[in-house]
């Protein structure tokens, strides 16, 4: 089982690493091994614990962008009523881009989650994939299509809606499925996809966070019965502690990252992942 201290550490870790492009799943596989904790990612109680921390992260993201989500919902409603997405309706275009991005991630997730998790369950493979995630982040920065757009009088949502095509959104959504492999970051995949589609770091991060909310929320909601069923017995106290720490950490992480990406790139996270991944791969393998 998970102690309250472990729950607090793992909750805070999940809240931060879910949004930082460094793989929450990879870290939650590797770090318990490094700390010598008897917690493994495929343990039923750990999966149930993760439901609570993911749900907390999704709620925080939804509340953080609450005003934006309300605008997006109204935009979706307008477009359905008018049976078209008006060229100047940024909220409607952004909303449908998010729908387009969520569908492939959801479908691939449903089909491949269990096989991929069990195939790459070991801490060593997670550490190696964290290093690969670092290479992907550096590659996305290097291969980005064109120079990032400089800030104009347009807001971030206008730039995203203008720049991204439906195909881009679908591709970015499909890239999220890479995160089913422990070690590959969901936010890293979507931010990298955004860069390759021509978004700036700031806009790619914003689109990544908006895209994260439905997919993390839906995955958590679908597994809530496990938390309240027999699998949650003896775990709910730790799950609440973990969820609270995850919520606080996620709030701070999203605030930090939105400011960080106004002027910075994915490069430091890529370097961190390569160093951390290679180092921990050696440690856990020996």
């Amino acid at each position, binding site marked *: 089982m998970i102690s309250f201290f472990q729950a607090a550490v793992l909750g805070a870790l999940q809240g931060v690493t879910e949004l930082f492009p460094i793989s929450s799943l990879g870290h939650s596989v590797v770090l318990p091994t490094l700390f010598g904790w008897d917690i493994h990612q495929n343990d039923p109680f750990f999966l149930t614990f993760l439901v609570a921390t993911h749900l907390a992260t999704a709620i925080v993201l939804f509340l953080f962008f609450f005003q934006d989500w309300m605008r997006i919902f109204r935009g979706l409603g307008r477009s359905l009523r008018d*049976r*078209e997405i008006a060229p100047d309706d940024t909220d409607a275009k952004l909303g449908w881009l998010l729908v387009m991005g969520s569908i492939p991630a*959801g*479908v691939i997730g*449903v089909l491949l989650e269990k096989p991929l998790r069990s195939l790459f369950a070991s801490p060593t493979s997670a550490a190696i994939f964290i290093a690969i995630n670092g290479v992907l982040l550096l590659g996305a920065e290097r291969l980005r299509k064109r120079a990032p757009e400089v800030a104009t009088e347009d807001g971030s949502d206008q730039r995203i809606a203008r720049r991204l095509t439906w195909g881009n959104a679908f591709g970015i959504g499909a890239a999220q499925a890479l995160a089913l492999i422990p070690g590959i970051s969901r936010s890293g995949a979507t931010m990298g996809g955004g860069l390759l589609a021509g978004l700036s770091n700031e806009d790619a991060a914003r689109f990544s966070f908006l895209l994260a909310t439905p997919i993390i929320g839906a995955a958590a909601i679908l597994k809530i019965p496990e938390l309240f069923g027999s699998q949650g017995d003896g775990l709910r106290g730790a799950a609440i502690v973990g969820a609270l720490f995850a919520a606080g950490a996620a709030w701070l992480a999203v605030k930090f990252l939105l400011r960080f990406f106004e002027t910075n790139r994915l490069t430091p996270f890529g370097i961190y992942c390569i160093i951390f991944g290679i180092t921990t791969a050696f440690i856990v393998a020996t």
Partner: protein
Amino acid sequence: MNQRNWLAILAIVVGIILVIVGIVYWVEPASSLPGFFPGHDATNSEHHIKHGIAAFVVGLALFVFAWFSLGKKKSAA
């Protein structure tokens, strides 16, 4: 009929099939699913609820695509 309309009709047909597939996932255990369905497992008596939701949601998305495609084009002001 133009290509856009044909695509919309195709989307409706595939959408209906996917909604039905979603319902099949919800009502039939994995062991009773047709062999070509992802998740079919002769030894598993659980229901693949998430597979059903995925099929249902993609079906709805295709209906939305058809809704926009068959919508009246507004004349430019």
